[in-house]
């Protein structure tokens, strides 16, 4: 049994135009100390998949089915009061924009200590001491001084480190990081990715990293799930995925990168993502796919084993190893 198991998860949102199906039949697992990347382009469902774990989706409009278990315990049906405990202690989240997730009117130290006092029941003094340690852990110089500062006094990279410190304050089993470095400069990004690596190595934290950046995936992830139109289309250990991408969409993403230009041209992926309002029984990528054949329109390719520890949802996969 893995630490986290998501099985046949589907998530839709009720809208005026009907049910928008953001995630369809996703299954994945996360082991202790593992860094799993959920990647894909805007609207592919990567954030919704991850946010289903701590149930950070609007309860009134969300239509969720399937199962999410943490240490064997089902989370989707857990009463809200118990879920709140899970969110504080077992599963925590780091968002893209640290400025909007920190409270501008409290000091950094207060905001970290508050988490420790609420979830760990530490005294004011003990929480303060631990907060300094946490700031040190995430690589903030002069933590004693930083404790007394307000979010606006910190740079973007420092704020993101504070968010990570808050997220790991209670030593969560699972840390979900949603595009945590997208708003940061690249020289700052490198340092923040190091913090995640370090947390995994030192605390054994399992991390779900949501990102659109294949460079970040290559840098830090152990395994990756590539999503397209709400479904997982490919899943493999990172070295295997980059060496032998099987799904034409994964390959398309890699070839579309400016660094992959051939003779001054980039490989484009023609067409657009299908509407999340309908879901015909066909491969969602077929009308953009260079390898599509008649069978791709007749039924949906299942996510199946295409080699050791490598899954892809394609009738005509490429890149045999």
């Amino acid at each position, binding site marked *: 049994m893995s630490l986290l198991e998501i099985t046949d998860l589907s998530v839709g949102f009720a809208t005026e135009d009907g049910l928008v199906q953001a995630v369809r039949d996703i299954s994945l697992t996360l082991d202790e100390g593992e860094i799993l990347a959920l990647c894909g*382009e805007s609207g592919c469902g990567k954030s919704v998949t991850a946010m289903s774990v701590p149930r950070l989706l609007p309860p009134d409009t969300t239509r969720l089915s399937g199962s999410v278990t943490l240490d064997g315990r089902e989370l989707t049906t857990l009463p809200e009061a118990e879920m709140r405990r899970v969110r504080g202690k077992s599963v925590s989240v780091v968002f893209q924009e640290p400025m909007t997730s920190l409270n501008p009117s409290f000091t950094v130290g207060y905001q970290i200590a508050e988490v420790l006092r609420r979830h760990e029941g530490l005294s004011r003094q003990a929480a303060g001491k631990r907060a300094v340690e946490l700031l040190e852990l995430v690589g903030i110089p002069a933590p004693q001084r930083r404790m007394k500062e307000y979010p606006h006094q910190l740079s973007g990279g420092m704020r993101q480190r504070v968010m990570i410190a808050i997220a790991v304050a209670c030593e969560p089993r699972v840390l979900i990081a949603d595009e945590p470095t997208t708003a940061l400069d690249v*020289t700052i990004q*490198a340092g923040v990715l190091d913090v995640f690596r370090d947390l995994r190595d030192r605390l054994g934290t399992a991390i779900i990293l949501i990102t659109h*950046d294949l*460079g970040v995936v290559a840098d830090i992830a152990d395994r990756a799930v590539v999503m397209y139109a709400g479904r997982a289309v490919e899943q493999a250990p990172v070295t295997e995925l980059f060496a032998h991408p099987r799904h034409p969409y994964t390959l398309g993403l890699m070839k579309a*990168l400016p660094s992959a*230009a051939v003779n001054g041209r980039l490989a484009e992926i023609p067409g657009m993502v299908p509407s999340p309002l309908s879901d015909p029984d066909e491969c969602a990528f077929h009308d953009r796919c260079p390898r599509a054949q008649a069978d791709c329109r007749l039924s949906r390719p299942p996510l199946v084993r295409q080699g050791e520890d490598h899954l892809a949802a394609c009738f005509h996969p490429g890149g045999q190893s």
Partner: protein
Amino acid sequence: MILRIDNLVKHYGPVRAVDGLSLEIGEGEVLGLVGESGSGKSTVGKCVLRLTEPTAGTIELNGRDITHLSRRAMRPLRRDVHMVFQDPYSSLNPRFTIERIVGEPLLRHKLADRRETSRRVAEMLEKVGLRQEMRSRFPHELSGGQRQRVGLARALILEPKLVVADEPVSALDVSVQASVLNLITDLQRDMGFSCLFITHDLSVVEFLADRIAVMYLGKLVESGPTKEIFAQPRHPYTQALLSAAPVADPVTQRERRRIVLGGDVPSPVDPPSGCRFHTRCPLAYDECRTVEPALQDPRGSGHPAACHLVTADRVPDAAATR
């Protein structure tokens, strides 16, 4: 030279956004202006378009000093230089149809009547790969990639000599970005405009720029031909920047030597003395803290850098310390 910027300074109150920057762009040349947030790269673009008043220095467009031209005197020159923004959504009037948005520069400059405008819009839409039925649509009905194509069509309809593009593909998904970058390359080759391409993304400028200029805290630290900058960056900051951008290949990426910079970018209100990079530079020594290095090209190879450690026979290696 299409564009010549000499010792440009732009201060916003106490913020020294650009602090003495010189660069040139030749005819048909694409210059990639690279830097991180707060480097002042966007301010340079705004000064070139006179969207903001330079504090000091001169800007010459096509041999003519435009630094202090009045709005009225500037008007005819606006035909020659156009801007493409990062977020086409906020730069396109939501109440106007695509036809009107794209044709507006022609009408504003009284260069064409309605019929001629309509014909030119049709031509331009075809060039940027948009179907003719888009003419009657509104910006909100378009995807991000389509909107950026509209932004390009509008910028190029007057056949400008210079296009200033500020992060035009940064908000786009990779697959859409690829097609917009291919389009920019094609248009640039067909129409021959010069381009000041402002971005934080090194892989994008490597793809399309002829030359690259790197900014740090309001100053140029290095410039040179794209291939050379990537093959042999001279300034420690450029070296760090290149080493920090992850490559999409786990085997290479995990074996690369990385230069991790300490600390944060200092405030442009109170930039460090001497070399502005010295607070984060792994190679900094006493002189760097007091004496500001000039941008010089001791090898005379059109690849100047502003670092005391760059000499005729030596290039610093920021990765080789400690």
